[in-house]
């Protein structure tokens, strides 16, 4: 019996729409008592986002190490949140990807699942999104090789030291100037000095990376109630943005020297810092953001992907930034990888290593496109709005659009989330075998008598059924 593709589409549509009630549970109501787990999703992400308690390896946070990655307590919240909202979005993503493959109502459909599984083991979109793009080797001829060696010498022996010098002196000078603000009482002078320090800091950074950035598009004059949203590749993104346009970054406040930098040098940005660990502080931060949007002319900068991606893919945009009732200005950032791969793989390289790597390359070449402002339509949910903005940015920056949540880097997807095709297959099999007319009376208690049943159970992993339980076992 033949089953049409439109049946498949319809079944998958029903599945996806079943998930929608979940989203309305977690829509943001201003002034409400929001639970912590809901908060995570509302919390906009930025380059130096939350490390709420401990670092991923259990170390306490120090500026410059493992920035921008979630901490243990945050991961628990995220895990809970996943359980609620993942199915719909993943199904949606899968549907787009595989809708060409037809499902036949056949018991041998198992073979297709296996094929797909093998294909994913060989190459999957999610892992690819966080992998450095492999540069093409070009130095295989002897003269090219010699050129390359000369290039290496030039970069490491001459350029690198100079750049380190520039970088260090930039920060030093900026800090010096910033610290002199304490001498003066006049706010005007304070502001002037901070602005000067800021300029020196950003220019120092940019010079040391030899960043050649082309800014395209129209930058509006008025930024009241505006949020700038961009794809995220590295911490450098924010600095490049700052240079062109003052942007209010949202991030974690550090102690010590870094904190001083945040309080003084970066103050012209009107940034929003939050203290780690304080849970009430999160609600306050959202209030601060909303307040900033109403009163300030400086736009807020947010990176909805929540993590650094390799500038070839664009992963899921979290909806927090899109629920603020603000105008969104999408910004697409595209790095030219011929000169350096700017992707910061924070699990592979620490921040200092990464920066040294950037400084030891020829230079940073980037294109930053300011796109037309977008607002949420009446009949759109924040998630749909986020998807819409994501499509615009991915298209401009020529990134592959995937629906994976960046946090899957840290959290294993619970195996409750099976491919929706299971249910579709179930429906087909029922129809094919005309199960409604069945007459079988086989009791399934017979199965336990089968001599192979223990082996079967073990090979199917049926002794422990979910990933969560597996994790719990490991922790014990």
């Amino acid at each position, binding site marked *: 019996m033949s089953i049409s593709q439109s049946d498949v589409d319809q079944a998958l549509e029903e599945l996806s729409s079943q998930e929608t009630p979940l989203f309305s549970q977690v829509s943001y109501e201003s002034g409400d008592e929001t639970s912590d787990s809901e908060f995570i999703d509302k919390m906009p992400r930025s380059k130096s986002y939350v490390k709420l308690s401990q670092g991923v390896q259990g170390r306490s946070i120090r500026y410059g190490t493992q920035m921008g990655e979630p901490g243990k307590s945050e991961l628990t919240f995220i895990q809970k949140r996943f359980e609620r909202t993942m199915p719909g979005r993943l199904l949606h993503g899968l549907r787009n990807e595989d809708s060409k493959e037809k499902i036949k109502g056949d018991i041998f459909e*198992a073979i297709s699942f296996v094929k797909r599984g093998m294909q994913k083991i060989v190459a*999957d979109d999610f892992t690819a999104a966080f992998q450095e793009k492999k540069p093409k080797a070009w130095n295989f001829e002897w003269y090219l090789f010699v050129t390359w060696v000369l290039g290496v010498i030039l970069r490491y022996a001459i350029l690198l030291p100079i750049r380190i010098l520039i970088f260090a002196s930039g920060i030093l000078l900026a800090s010096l100037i910033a610290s002199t603000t304490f001498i003066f009482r006049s706010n005007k002078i304070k502001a002037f000095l901070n602005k000067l320090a800021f300029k020196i800091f950003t220019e120092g950074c940019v010079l040391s990376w030899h960043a050649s950035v082309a800014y395209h598009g129209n930058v509006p004059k008025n930024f009241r109630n505006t949020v700038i949203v961009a794809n995220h590749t590295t911490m450098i993104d924010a600095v490049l943005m700052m240079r062109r346009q003052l942007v209010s970054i949202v991030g974690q406040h550090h102690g010590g020297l870094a904190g001083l930098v945040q309080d003084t040098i970066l103050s012209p940005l009107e940034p929003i810092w939050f203290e780690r660990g304080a849970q009430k502080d999160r609600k306050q931060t959202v209030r601060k953001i909303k307040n900033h949007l109403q009163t300030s002319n400086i736009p807020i900068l947010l990176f909805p992907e929540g993590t650094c991606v390799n500038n070839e893919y664009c992963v899921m945009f979290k909806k927090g930034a899109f629920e603020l009732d603000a105008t969104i200005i999408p910004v697409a950032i595209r790095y030219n990888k011929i000169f350096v791969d700017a992707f910061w793989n924070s699990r592979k390289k620490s921040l200092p290593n990464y920066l040294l790597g950037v400084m030891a390359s020829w230079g940073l070449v980037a294109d930053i496109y300011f796109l037309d402002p977008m607002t949420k339509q009446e009949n759109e949910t924040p998630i749909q709005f986020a998807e819409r903005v994501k499509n615009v940015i991915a298209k401009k920056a020529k990134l592959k659009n995937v629906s994976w949540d960046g946090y899957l880097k840290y959290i*294993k997807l*619970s195996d409750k989330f099976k491919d929706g095709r299971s*249910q579709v297959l179930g429906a087909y099999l029922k129809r094919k075998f005309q*199960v409604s007319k069945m007459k079988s009376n086989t009791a399934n208690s017979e199965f336990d008598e089968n001599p192979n049943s223990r082996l079967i159970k073990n090979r199917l992993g049926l002794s422990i059924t979910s990933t969560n339980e597996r994790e719990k076992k490991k922790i014990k």
Partner: protein
Amino acid sequence: MGGLFSKDDELTQEDLEELQEMSNFNQKQIRRLYKRFKRLDKDGSGSITLDEFYSIPELVMNPLNIRVIGLFDPECEDVEKVSVNFKQFLKTLSVFSPNGSKEDKLKYAFKVYDIAGDDLIDEHELFSLLKLMVGESIKTHEILYIVEKVIEEVDTTMDGCISFKEFCNALKDVDLEEKMSINI
């Protein structure tokens, strides 16, 4: 061959040649698959465990992921403890290469269903596999009914189980090359 994949991070020419002989891949593909293997083997232990497989979200969502992973190490008694080294990795993927023989593909397709590995597919294995595939969307007694019907259709020797021969026969009209081949 000692220390082949234990200390050295890279494959030597010798390794490559040996692997090329035992698989359907050329050296370029082998190198690429090795990179992929290393990437999946996060702790660098030289073998991929169940957890490391589960870091691929799309694999987690596949209802038959357990069987897919089981194919790499068919001798393994308990899938929780599965541990796949590069040789097994390559060997299994080799079957799925477009150059894989039809015979091998049929064998592995059979292995998917033959969970206990006794060269017979009985109703319990068929039931389990079907249950994995359809999840909660079909009730148990309905699945049992379907299992009965399938065995009726396919089991020509009437011994209650599906042998490899009967399996191949049932699949004779299926383009297995296409169904069991992936892009490497």
